[in-house]
């Protein structure tokens, strides 16, 4: 995809997003809001998995941490503005990402995967036991505060208003993530995955780059977590559980980790499939698992790779000279 066409695509998608409330029923608008939030979560996850090649099994700790700290802030600070609630959520994840990242950044591969899972479990254990703050198994219910702007306030009680807020903020965050992959920092991350030795030789401190990336993706996941709380007006320990990490892993992987837009597609497919399968059977996680293992075995590039291949066949886009598709396709 040419870089010039990207602003056009963004504008077209945004325009389509603006029209959605007039076209969709309440049920589907609700679903679309959820998809937007999970898209951001999946995109942040893919910055780790697809771009940096770091397999984390603990992304839900950031998502859940922000979800809880937003809820706790709204409950305990009366009259808290919406922006500040989100800010508190994101700020805690930045702090957590920095501390955990500095403990983990020396490890890669299996070690990293294992340690992230362990830390996720720590967060989960704390959330379960610290009943007075997190509500334990009961979770926390909140009311969305009104959106305060300079000239007045907008009530977010209606789904349509909240949908627009989500579209703007989450959409902007996704665009920012895309922009991030084109900055010098984003390129450094890519090159580090391809050849870390050489990057070190060229004078890059790869540990610091990895720490920055880890903290950044944590903060983005945190933003998604804050919106998750605001969307459902409820947060339970499932938001911080390993299942939430599994969900994002499935989204990113099913959509395809080799493109920027793959995880967004994955979030769409996951939420729609989940809605469809959970109507049919109580065993839908089993089918999700089977689909996942099938894709690991046979379609490791995910749906986006399938789409790319089909497009290549149909329109004869240039071959990527036999190199790994990842190196070629990641920068969109």
């Amino acid at each position, binding site marked *: 995809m040419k870089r010039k066409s990207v602003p056009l695509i963004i504008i077209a998608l945004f325009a389509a997003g603006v029209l959605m409330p007039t076209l969709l029923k309440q049920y589907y608008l609700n679903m679309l809001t959820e998809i937007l939030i999970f898209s951001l979560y999946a995109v942040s996850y893919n910055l780790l*998995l697809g771009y940096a090649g770091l397999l984390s*099994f603990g992304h839900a700790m950031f998502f859940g941490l922000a979800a809880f700290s937003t809820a706790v802030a709204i409950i305990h600070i009366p009259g808290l503005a919406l922006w500040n609630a989100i800010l508190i959520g994101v700020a805690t994840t930045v702090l957590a990402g920095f501390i955990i990242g500095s403990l983990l950044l020396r490890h890669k591969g299996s070690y990293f*995967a*294992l340690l992230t899972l362990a830390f996720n479990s720590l967060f989960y254990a704390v959330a379960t036991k610290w009943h007075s703050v997190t509500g334990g198994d009961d979770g926390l219910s909140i009311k969305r505060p009104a959106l305060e702007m300079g000239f007045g306030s907008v009530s977010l009680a209606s789904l349509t208003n909240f949908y627009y807020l989500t579209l703007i903020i989450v959409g902007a965050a996704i665009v920012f993530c895309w922009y991030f992959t084109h900055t010098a920092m984003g390129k450094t991350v890519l090159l580090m995955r391809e050849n870390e030795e050489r990057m070190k030789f060229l004078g890059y401190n790869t540990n610091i780059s990895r720490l920055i990336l880890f903290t950044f993706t944590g903060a983005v996941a945190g933003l998604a977590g804050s919106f998750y709380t605001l969307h459902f007006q409820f947060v339970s320990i499932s938001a911080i559980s390993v299942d939430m990490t599994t969900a994002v*892993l499935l989204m990113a992987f099913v959509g395809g980790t080799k493109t920027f837009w793959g995880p967004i597609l994955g979030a769409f497919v996951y939420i729609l499939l989940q809605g469809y399968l959970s109507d049919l059977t109580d065993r839908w996680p089993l089918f999700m698992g089977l689909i*996942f293992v099938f894709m*690991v*075995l046979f379609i490791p590039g995910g749906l986006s790779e399938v789409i790319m291949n089909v497009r290549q066949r149909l329109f004869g886009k240039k071959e990527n000279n036999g190199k790994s598709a990842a190196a070629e396709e990641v920068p969109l």
Partner: protein
Amino acid sequence: MNDVPVFFLHGLAYAGLLFLVSAGLTLVFGMMNVLNFAHAAMYMLGAYFSYSIMMRSTGRFWLSLMVCPVILFIIGALIERFLLRRVHKFGHVQELLLTFGLAYIITELVKWFWGNYPLAVNIGGTLGSTIPIFGITYPVYRIFIFLCAVFVGTVMALILYKTRLGIILRAAVNDSEMVNTLGVNVPLVFMGVFAFGAALSGFAGVIAGPLLSTFPGMAQEILIDAFVVIVVGGFGSLGGAVVASLLIGELQSFGVLLFPKLSIALVYLLMAVVLIIKPSGLFGEE
């Protein structure tokens, strides 16, 4: 105070179980460089198979202790041969994803077949009774777990360091290509190692049934503790697994006694301290 010996013995029993789980995990990791996220799920399968075997009579404990590892051995061999070997060429991330996906599927299947609630396994006979020790009466079964772990650990050490097979295994860790060139069927060895790891997890599962209850979350619970054992002990180190299991077993046990509110965090705290001071683990190589 009678508490100290009781909690000490509790710690030993849990350490024994932890060792049985983490020994298989660390063995597979050391040999094949595959971190098997499905290991704890296979341990859970062992516990559930054992429940089904023992459902009618408690006297069948010994039967299930022999049968379940064999079933898990076969499952492990099949997983290695038909799934893991396929993704091996794609690298670590794919292998991790595969084992993670398998763990997910196994957990869901267990919920499907046995239900999403705890099942109690009662142990009868001599193992279910108590004996006096250190001036207290203590359940025989917990001592039995510890002895099992000692037995398995000894057998593993003997195989690894005293037999020809052990030499091949240790050589395959260092340079599998060279060992392959020397005429050893390395893929077969790897399949055997993976299947043995699975069998060991099944054995641990059978043992765990009567100690902890059998429920779909049991895999997740032990997996984290086993991971912490591996991190603290050092990746792929059998000796490290012994020391770290004892350390964490006792820490868990006395943590409940001394700091009841902090007890869940203590294990993670230990892991964080080890990560800061010696990231490769107590017995790990740099």
